[in-house]
C-alpha cells in the first residue's frame, strides 16, 4: 500500500445522504475476476445523467469526495472501495460512515475522514462556487484545506498510523518476516511440500458425453 501523508486534488461535492454500496457499485459488476478496472462501475446508475457531478468537466478528474451523511451503508462488498479508488479518489469526507465501509477503506488505502456537518456544508459551498477547486488533505494534521478554509477531520489513530506507514494487513504481517522465516527453519522435514510434484502415473481421461 502506498504511504499517505498529504494529498491535493480536485474536490467533488456530492450533495446526497445515505449513499449505499449498491449505489456506489451495483451488484451486476461483482462477477468480475479482477480487483481493478471498476472505475466504470462507480455510481453506475447516475453516470448516465449529464447533471451528475462527475459528468461535469470541472469535477471529472476529482480525487477528494465530499459526501453527505451515512456514506457507504448496506452490503459489505469491498468492491465499493475498489471502484472509488479505481476512479481516482484518495479521500472521502463525510459526517458519518457505515462501519464496514470505513473498515474496508482502511484496508485498501482510501482515507475516510469524518468532518462535522457544518464543515461539510462550508466545503460544499466552496467547491460549488468555484468548480475545480483543489482540496489539500493532511493526514498527519488531520485537516482538509480548500481555498483559505481549513477544517479538521477525524480518523482513528491505528488506521491513520497504518495509512501513513502505507501498511495493509499483509504489509503488517510482512514486518514480521524474520519471525516467519525463523519459524520455517524449524519446520520438520516430514511436513508436506506440493513441489516438486509427486503423483501417480498420468492417465488419459475420457470425457463423459451426454446420454
Amino acid at each position, binding site marked *: *500500500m502506498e504511504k499517505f501523508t498529504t494529498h491535493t486534488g480536485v474536490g467533488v461535492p456530492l450533495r446526497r445522504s445515505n449513499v449505499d454500496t449498491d449505489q456506489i457499485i451495483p451488484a451486476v459488476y461483482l*462477477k468480475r*475476476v*479482477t*480487483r*481493478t478496472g471498476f472505475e466504470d462501475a462507480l455510481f453506475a446508475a447516475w453516470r448516465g445523467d449529464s447533471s451528475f457531478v462527475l459528468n461535469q468537466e470541472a469535477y471529472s478528474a476529482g480525487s477528494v469526495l465530499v459526501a453527505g451523511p451515512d456514506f457507504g451503508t448496506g452490503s459489505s462488498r*469491498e468492491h465499493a472501495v475498489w471502484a472509488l479508488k479505481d476512479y481516482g479518489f484518495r479521500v472521502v469526507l463525510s459526517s458519518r460512515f457505515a462501519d464496514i465501509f470505513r473498515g474496508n477503506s482502511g*484496508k485498501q488505502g482510501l482515507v475516510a475522514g469524518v468532518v462535522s456537518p457544518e464543515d461539510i456544508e462550508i466545503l460544499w459551498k466552496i467547491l460549488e462556487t468555484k468548480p475545480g477547486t483543489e482540496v489539500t488533505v493532511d493526514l498527519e494534521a488531520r485537516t482538509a484545506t480548500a481555498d483559505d478554509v481549513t477544517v479538521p477531520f477525524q480518523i482513528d489513530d491505528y488506521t491513520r498510523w497504518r495509512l501513513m506507514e502505507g501498511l*495493509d*494487513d*499483509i504489509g503488517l*504481517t*510482512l514486518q*514480521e*518476516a524474520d*519471525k*516467519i522465516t525463523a*519459524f*520455517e527453519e524449524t*519446520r*520438520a*522435514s*516430514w*511436513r*508436506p*511440500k*506440493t*513441489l516438486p*510434484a*509427486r*503423483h*501417480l*502415473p*498420468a*492417465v488419459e*481421461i475420457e*470425457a*463423459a*458425453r*451426454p*446420454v
Partner: protein
Amino acid sequence: MAGTLAEKVWEAHLVRRGEDGSPDLLYIDLHLVHEVTSPQAFEGLRLAGRQVRRPDLTIATEDHNTPTLDIDRPIADLTSRTQIDTLRANAKEFGVRLHSLGDADQGIVHQVGPQLGLTMPGLTVVCGDSHTSTHGAFGALAFGIGTSEVEHVLATQTLPLAPFKTMAITVNGALPAGATSKDIILAIIAKIGTGGGQGYVLEYRGEAIRALSMEARMTICNMSIEAGARAGMIAPDETTFEYLKGRPHAPEGADWDEAVEYWKTLRSDDDAQYDAEVVLEAADLEPFVTWGTNPGQGLPLSASVPVPADIADEGERETAAKALEYMGLTAGTPLRDIKVDTVFIGSCTNGRIEDLRSVAKVVKGKEKASDVRVLVVPSSARVRLQAEAEGLDVIFKEFGAEWRNAGCSMCLGMNPDQLAPGERSASTSNRNFEGRQGKGGRTHLVSPLVAAATAIRGTLSSVSDLDLPFDIDITTFDGTPLDGVGASPLGESVVVDLPIPVAGQPALR
C-alpha cells in the same frame, strides 16, 4: 499442560503470540486454491508487486465451475470459462502447481489433498472454501477463509487468527446397519443446530468415530461448517496412518517414522478441558434426511414432516413454516412418502470411492425408478478412474444413472448441472439452502445408501426398504486403504484389487 487436539496443533504453528487482545500469527502448512475465490487474491498480489511466498506449500485445482460432460471442449458458459482461464494464467505467473480439467489429479479440492497424501495429521490447512473442514478428519486444523485471507496466505504463508473454543462430540457405541457417517453428522447438526458450533473447533471422538474409515471420517468433518463451527477434527490413529502410507506425498523412510511418532501424540489429553461437550449414542441413529432449507432441519427417515404449529419456539416455528412452503411439503407427511425427481451422488461430502462402492452394491442388477434422474459424479478424476477399473461405472449405467466427470457439479450448480425450478432432489451433498442446486430447486440431504435406495424406489427410502438379494454388509470395510490408488507404491502403475474389499462378505461381481 493438558491440552486438546486442536490446541496442540495451534500451539505448534505459533509464529507469534498476540498481545493485548491482538490476534496470534499462525503458520499455514498447506494452502489449497480453486478458481472461484482466488482471482482477486492473485490480482491483489500483482497490484502490490508481491510474490507467492511458498508456492511449494500451495496447490490449485479446478472444480467449482467445471462441466461434468464434454470436458475436452471449450466451456460453454463464458463466466465459468473466464474464471478457469484466470486461474490457469495466475498459476503460471506465480508458479503454483495446478491440476487442470483433464488431468488425472483434477477434482474437488478436498479430495485432491487427501488423495495425493498432502493432507496429513498435525497440519494447518486452509482454502477459500468453507468445506476445508474436511481435512480435519486426519487430525489437521483445517478451515475455510475469505478472498482477502487467501491473498494474505499467498503473500505471507501465515494468518492472524483469534483464539477459538473447543467442543467435544462423543459418539458412543456402534452404528446400526444401514446407518452411515453421514447420518451421524446430520443427526449432530439437527441436535446442536446450524449455529451450535459457532466459534468452536469440534472434536469428534468415541467408539463409533474410531470404527469409521478415513473416507467416512471426512464426511463428518466436511459438514462441521454446517453446524457453524470453524473446523472439525478427529485424532489420528492406525486408520489414518494406513490411509496415508504409500500415497505420493506421504513421508518416506525415516521421515515416515518420525512423523508417525509425532502423530501419535496428537490426541486430546485425558484431563483436557473442553468449552462444551455433546454426547450421542450411535445405536439410536437411523438414516437421517433433511426436510427443510438448512442442514439442521433434519429427522430420522421414519419420522414425518414436522407440523410448525407444534413447535414451541416462535422463531423456529416461522422458519419451519417458511421452509415447508419453499420445499412444497405438507406438514405431517411421512418422509418416506416424499417423491423425488433427481438423485445426486457426489460432492466433497460423499463423492469418494467408498461412497460410490456402497451405492454400486445397492443398485447392482437393479433398474432406477423410471421417472427419476440419477447423476453420479466422482469427486476427482482418480476416483473416476478407480471406479471404472472396478467396473462401478458399468453398474451405474446399467442401473440407468448418468456417469460423469469429476467436480463440484450439482452440489452448488455453478456448472450446468442444476435442478429446474420446483424440482426435488435427494442429494448426498452438504447444503439444502434455497436455490443452492438451482433456482427454485428443493434439496433433501441424504447418505449415499439412502440416495441409492431412493433412486430405486423413487421416494425417500433406506436400504431396509429394499429386498436386497443377499445379506450384504454395506458399510463395513476391512480397514485396508479403500482407495487403491494411493496404496500402490510411487511410480508403479495402479493395481486394483477385485472384488471390492469387504470383510467376510460374498463378492458382488
